[in-house]
């Protein structure tokens, strides 16, 4: 990135001059991303909808990407900018690894992403914000970790679960009631899909599982074996079993009162 800013600065997202604009620019926005840790790793998942104002811009957008072998980024906010940011982020991690012969620490990766979000602040002020969620497996501490960000690049580590995007309030509420310390990987993947379902239930910009078109949330798992994205069969299996239960109980599983 330092090399790029010296030689071809116009290729970096933060260095482009914006034309003066009035009001908010209409561009596709990605919506809800959720993450949950479990003993041995972390799960990161996202819905598939992109909206542009009141219009659904895309039904099957992919918003969760592997950053490298042991980490992944889920993006909420302006889709075009976010995808470019992720591409640059992936490139930087890989470049560092090749040049130095060693991987960046998870903290280092999280900090790097923070700087990139900050460099987008000018655009964020005009309504083109990018707010990712970063999750990875910390090889040194041997556990999954989640980092959330705000538009100014402020970084905070989340313990247990986190969500970002327009449906995040509802997703977080759902996860708060369902989360436990001793989840298995399978339970964790179910939990994130439940949370996305609840987000889609109450937020118009978040898409639920689309059975008719076979569009299901993207669920990724990162453990010490590295990054793995659940196949379509696996995620449809989870989504269908949740749907089935929700036919009887539309609001999903109930937590105990006391």
């Amino acid at each position, binding site marked *: 990135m330092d*090399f*790029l800013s010296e030689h*071809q600065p116009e*290729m970096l997202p933060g260095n482009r001059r914006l034309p003066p604009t009035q009001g908010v620019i209409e561009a596709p926005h990605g919506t809800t991303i959720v993450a949950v840790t479990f003993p041995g790793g972390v799960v990161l998942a996202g819905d598939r909808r992109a909206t542009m104002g009141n219009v659904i811009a895309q039904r099957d957008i992919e918003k969760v990407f592997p950053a490298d072998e042991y980490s992944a980024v889920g993006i909420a906010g302006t889709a075009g900018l976010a995808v470019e940011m992720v*591409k*640059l982020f992936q*490139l930087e991690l*890989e*470049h560092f690894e*090749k*040049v130095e*012969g060693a991987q960046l620490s998870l903290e280092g990766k999280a900090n790097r992403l923070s700087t990139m979000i900050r460099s987008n602040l000018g655009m964020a002020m005009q309504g083109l914000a990018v707010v990712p969620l970063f999750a990875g497996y910390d090889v040194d501490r041997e556990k999954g970790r989640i980092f959330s960000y705000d538009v100014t690049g402020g970084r905070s580590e989340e313990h247990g679960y986190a969500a970002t995007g327009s449906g995040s309030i509802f997703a977080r509420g759902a996860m708060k009631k369902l989360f436990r310390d001793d989840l298995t990987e399978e339970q964790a993947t179910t939990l994130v899909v439940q949370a996305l379902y609840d987000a889609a239930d109450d937020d118009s910009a978040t898409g639920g599982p689309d059975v008719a078109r076979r569009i299901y949330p993207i669920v990724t798992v990162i453990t010490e074996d590295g990054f793995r994205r659940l196949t379509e069969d696996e995620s449809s299996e989870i989504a269908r079993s949740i749907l089935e239960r929700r036919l009887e109980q539309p609001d999903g599983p109930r937590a105990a009162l006391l």
Partner: protein
Amino acid sequence: MSTPFYVSPQQAMADRAEYARKGIARGRSLVVLQYADGIVFVGENPSRALHKFSEIYDRIGFAAAGKYNEYENLRIGGVRYADLRGYTYDRDDVTARGLANVYAQTLGTIFSSAGEKPYEVELVVAEVGETPDGDQIYRLPHDGSIVDEHGSVAVGGNAELISNYLDQEHREGMSLAEGLKLAVKALSRESNGTQREIPAERLEVAVLDRTRPQARKFKRIVGRQLSRLLEVDGASTEAESSTEGSDEE
């Protein structure tokens, strides 16, 4: 004021080439050869940290003999070139041919510019294809020429001796263990015809494995995996003969 001696351009170039060749010959040799599932890099390297082989991009690997600081410089340049290209266009648009051209330009310019000393390095750029036919191996000597190699290539001190041996022994479709054993055998040949022993911990081995599911095909082979591969051949023939023996019993 004294007039400088006249040196003919031919002589000047020959001197520079001689200088570079001597520098390269001081370094240890390394071997790059094709096997059934990809390309294997084998070299003698007592250092664990200073690598002779490295990943440039998804399917492209780099090997160098000669002066460390000079080829490290070229390696980082190559990684930058590849990453920038892949980011600007697409990952598929980064090719070994393009990279070899850039290296040839760089080496050629440095070699013929009077102000600089020539680089004492010899590079190999290899790209693994979907099939063995798609594999590409380029050798780049110190003067900036490109040699398109097939099957196997050796660079460094004993390169000629080693590549002669490899040309005779290498065949298509070898397994990784076979290829590795052949490479080690070739590397351990001395110019006086004797063989010396290279222990596994002094070997640096890496592969570009086309069967790897990830996009990045480069992988270092170290520790147990390496010693297992080196043993496989000898041990398995022994094992086979012993099982045959036990079958007969």
